[in-house]
């Protein structure tokens, strides 16, 4: 029976080609715009490490100006970076399963005796747990050990991109490379890794690509590294030397911890509260106690990675889909009623309402399937257009280009959503046509 309905559906589509094209076009456009907008939304606001959302926490302490909150618009939040003294003090705790402090820096990578030009590379200066905590994939080798941080040992991890550039993608573990005039040994090479947004440091735009080089945090002090991200202070302090900078109220470090269960989370919260109270007694932390452990999803909202813009876009996408669906319902109704005479004959010859209903539903299914395929194609084109919109300079592989990396999940979601919505939209016309008393259409003949 289904095969016969399918045959009928295709025959009916050819009966009013104009109307059919209109309908398929509307469905396709609705799906295309939805696919594009949801991909954009997901790229900008998705949680790229959702599987660890319940165990990863950003650590923040309110060490800010007693007179003013860090963020005037969200006075309930603590500053999102830490001072050197607080970060290193909290790192002493054994409660978290994994923990890290880090900052961004800039260095020049160079290879002696090779034709490869030196390259300026964004660098993450971090303690060893970074790779394990954020499930960073390795192509070769791995991270460094505790000794690497303490030494500090001259070891580094390269991104796939840098390894391709300097070592032509070969296994470079054990090879030597200069980072800002100091020789380092490669211990690991990352595989392709593009967590968008780069939730762990939303400092300089969350759509930036991850850094190209990773070196142990222990190098920060001996090399007197500054942060290439934001460095902020509130207290007028006379900072002349690096030691004074480290001892100051300047915030520049990010801290994350992995706490596997509620008990460890409570213990760590108690630990940082206790630490802040101790500092309060010593004259610091004059604001109300506000020490936070923030999960990734909340972190993205707090730091406004999910911008208002994006929500407007999602609203627009759904308004668009709604108009397309209303349109489809109207057109389907018109189309079915146009053929009501034939349906009347079918009913008179013994087709039940149920059968008429299903016959028309199959027709709707055919229309939405063709619409979905076409919509996906148009959506692909629109995404390419989007990529062009975000490319500032064709030669520049900026992070925002990564925005248009097609995310399969969101494409499938949007597609399924639009497909089922179209079928749902077809329910009413299919039902309505089944309700028509056959006699009316037979009389006129």
């Amino acid at each position, binding site marked *: 029976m289904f095969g016969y309905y399918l045959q009928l559906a295709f025959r009916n589509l050819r009966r009013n080609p104009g109307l059919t094209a209109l309908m398929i076009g509307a469905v396709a456009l609705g799906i295309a*715009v939805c696919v594009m907008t949801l991909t954009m939304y997901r790229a900008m606001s998705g949680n790229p490490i959702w599987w660890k959302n319940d165990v990863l926490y950003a650590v923040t302490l309110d060490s800010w100006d007693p*007179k003013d909150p860090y963020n005037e618009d969200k006075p309930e939040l603590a500053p999102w970076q830490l001072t050197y003294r607080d970060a290193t003090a909290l790192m002493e705790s054994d409660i978290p399963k994994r923990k890290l402090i880090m900052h961004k820096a800039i260095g*020049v990578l160079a290879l002696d005796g090779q034709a490869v030009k030196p390259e300026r590379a964004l660098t993450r200066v971090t303690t060893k747990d970074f790779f394990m905590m954020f499930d960073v994939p390795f192509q070769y080798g791995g991270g460094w050990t505790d000794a690497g941080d303490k030494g500090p040992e001259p070891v580094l991890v390269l991104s796939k991109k840098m390894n391709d550039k300097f070592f032509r993608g070969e296994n470079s573990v054990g090879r030597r490379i200069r980072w*800002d005039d100091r020789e380092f040994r490669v211990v690991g090479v990352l595989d392709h890794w593009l967590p968008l947004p780069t939730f762990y440091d939303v400092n*300089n735009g969350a759509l930036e690509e991850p850094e190209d080089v990773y070196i142990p945090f222990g190098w920060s002090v001996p090399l007197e590294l500054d942060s290439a991200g934001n460095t902020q202070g509130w207290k007028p302090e006379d900072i002349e030397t690096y030691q004074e900078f480290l001892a100051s109220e300047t915030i520049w470090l990010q801290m994350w911890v992995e706490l596997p269960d509620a008990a460890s989370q409570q213990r760590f919260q108690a630990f940082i509260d206790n630490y802040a109270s101790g500092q309060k007694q010593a004259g610091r932390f004059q604001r109300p106690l506000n020490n936070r452990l923030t999960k990734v999803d909340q972190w993205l909202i707090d730091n406004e990675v999910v911008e*208002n813009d994006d929500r407007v876009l999602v609203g*627009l996408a759904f308004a668009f889909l709604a108009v*397309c669906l209303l349109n489809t319902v109207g057109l389907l109704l018109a189309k079915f009623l146009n053929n009501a005479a034939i349906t009347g004959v079918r009913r008179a010859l013994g087709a039940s309402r149920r059968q008429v209903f299903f016959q028309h539903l199959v027709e709707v299914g055919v229309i939405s399937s063709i619409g979905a395929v076409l919509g996906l194609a148009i959506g692909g084109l629109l995404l390419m257009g989007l990529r062009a919109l*975000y490319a500032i300079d064709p030669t520049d592989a900026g992070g925002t280009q990564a925005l248009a990396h097609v995310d399969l999940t969101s494409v499938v979601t949007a597609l399924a959503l639009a497909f089922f919505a179209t079928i749902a939209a077809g329910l009413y016309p299919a039902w309505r046509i089944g309700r028509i008393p056959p006699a009316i259409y037979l009389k006129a003949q």
Partner: protein
Amino acid sequence: MTAWNLRPIASALWRNRTGALLVAFQIAIGLAVLVNAVYVVKQRVDKINRPNGMDVENMIVVASAGFAKDFDYDTSWREDLATIRGLPGVKAASLVSNIPLSGGGSSSGYQAEPGEMNPETVVEANTFSVDEQGVAALGITLSSGRAFEAHEIIPADKEKDWESAPQAIVTEALAKAVFPKDRNALGKTFYDGLNTPITIVGIIENMHGSWVGWDKVEHVMLFPRIKSGPNGVYLVRTEPGRRDAIMRTIEERLGTSNPGRLLRWVRPLTYFERQSYLNDRNMAIFLVSVTTALLAITALGIFGLATFNVSTRIRQIGTRRAVGARRLDIVRHFLVENWMVTTAGVVVGCGAALAVGYWISVKYELPRLDLYYLVGGAFAIWLIGLFAAWQPARRASAISPAVASRTV
């Protein structure tokens, strides 16, 4: 006014209301989206087009990074600037600490009186270090005072990079914020958080700083200082039309002049401007295209409904024509019918537009939706409706009265 026959049209419409209601809903959504999209786009376009005070079109940014162990920063920037300034077509070039409109910069608090910072009077300002050609390289206009002189420029010193200089050139907006009562702040002294006195030697008519999204983007201050190395950023201003050629020359000359450093890039300042306004621009493009597509689909819906209505009433139309209705009456019948549907949609749509407008004004902290937009949007929708129903109505009027006497 029986000629308009509103009652029978309305009752005919009511008998087949499902299709009409669907179209009316489309129109309502279309109007709500149209009005608010136009409003948001207007805000974005205004933001992108505000004057930033600089000669952006003719400016180049050059970034150099020294990496050799014994890299001589002072010699390097002197040589580089001498090379650049010597190129024909270059008006001025200056070493700068940050790039205007780029999203990266530094800011600090200042106030008119010495002593501890008072939250009531402290003013945030975006600071840039430049040399004696800074004002010329930025292409800004001084409304009073003077540019920096060569002897005022403080040499590079890593430990003093972030300290204030004794002189500064400030924007009018900043001067007004620090000295709200004075008409002319030239020559006046104000203070930073460490109580360093700073004297205003020049006032800039208008200049935008680093962050285009900041509500105090016009609070800009220039210090006469050489930023410490080893990374140097040069701002170059050229004669109109010669920018791109000069960029290539700079790349050639500086790319090989010093093996101890890396010429990171040479970019037009418009690159940064474009990047900073990218989201605003894209949002505007996106809204315009999606709204256009949405209106097109709505128009198709109106067209489809009218076509359907005509095709199901061929016999009635023929009968009306046979008993004396003119072609004009038939056209009018369908246009009025369509107008009723559109109007129903517009009425609901006005409510929806206001609700969405309220939501957006709260989200973006924008002024409330202007009612002119609503009126304009309603007229636009009426026009679109008329346009979409025109062809089916014409077709209906072409139906021959003879149809009435034929069996279908």
